[in-house]
């Protein structure tokens, strides 16, 4: 299950929780990725909408893919406003083999960017502005524009 935080992720306690739950289960490697909101273009925060049912399906598919390699996947994401210099996304992979963990972390994060049903907004002077230019159409987009 994806952990959803209202607002910023408490990174210390999250990483501690993940490491604590798994370090004695004989995984030789833990890799983590943490995404933090950068101060740029005068934004105060980023803000996120999540469509949970599809995020959960997408995540469970990745979890199964990693299980086939003997690896474990965990993920957290923020909903709502996440101020500059706080974190909105975290994931961890535990694996017996380091190469699996390193390869899969990159593949997972890139697919997350392209296909996780999450929408990003810049927050400027309290207003939410959809980050259209940084967003990617999901796989299979444009179906309803086809036809006659």
């Amino acid at each position, binding site marked *: 299950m994806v952990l959803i935080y209202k607002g910023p992720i408490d990174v210390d306690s999250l990483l501690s929780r993940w490491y604590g739950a798994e370090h004695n289960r004989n995984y030789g490697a833990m890799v983590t990725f943490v*995404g933090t909101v950068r101060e740029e273009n005068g934004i105060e925060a980023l803000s*996120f*909408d999540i*469509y949970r*049912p*599809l995020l959960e*399906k997408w995540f469970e598919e990745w979890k199964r893919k990693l299980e086939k390699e003997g690896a474990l996947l965990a993920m957290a*994401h923020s909903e709502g406003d996440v101020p500059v210099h706080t974190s*909105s*996304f975290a994931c961890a992979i535990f694996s017996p083999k380091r190469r699996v963990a390193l390869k899969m972390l990159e593949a997972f*994060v890139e697919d*997350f*960017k*392209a*296909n*996780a*049903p*999450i*929408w*990003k*907004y810049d927050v400027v002077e309290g207003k939410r502005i*959809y*980050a*259209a230019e*940084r*967003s*990617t*159409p*999901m*796989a*299979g*987009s*444009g*179906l*309803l*524009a*086809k*036809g*006659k």
Partner: protein
Amino acid sequence: MVKVEFLGPIGKSPIEVDASTLAELAEILKKDAEVAKWLENSAVAVNDTLVESLEMKLNSGDRVSLLPPVCGG
């Protein structure tokens, strides 16, 4: 009747429409100026499963979701 919901930045309340295939639904949505501009780059889910064919039959009570371009993290 089929329920259509518009996720994320589309920012439109759900509507109920009468359509028996996705192709029919497409024709209806193309006539809504507010929605039409999103069709080109939105993915489509029926009852929370992403779909890839316009031929797909819709049944009364089905829920169709439009998912515009994403950017997590």
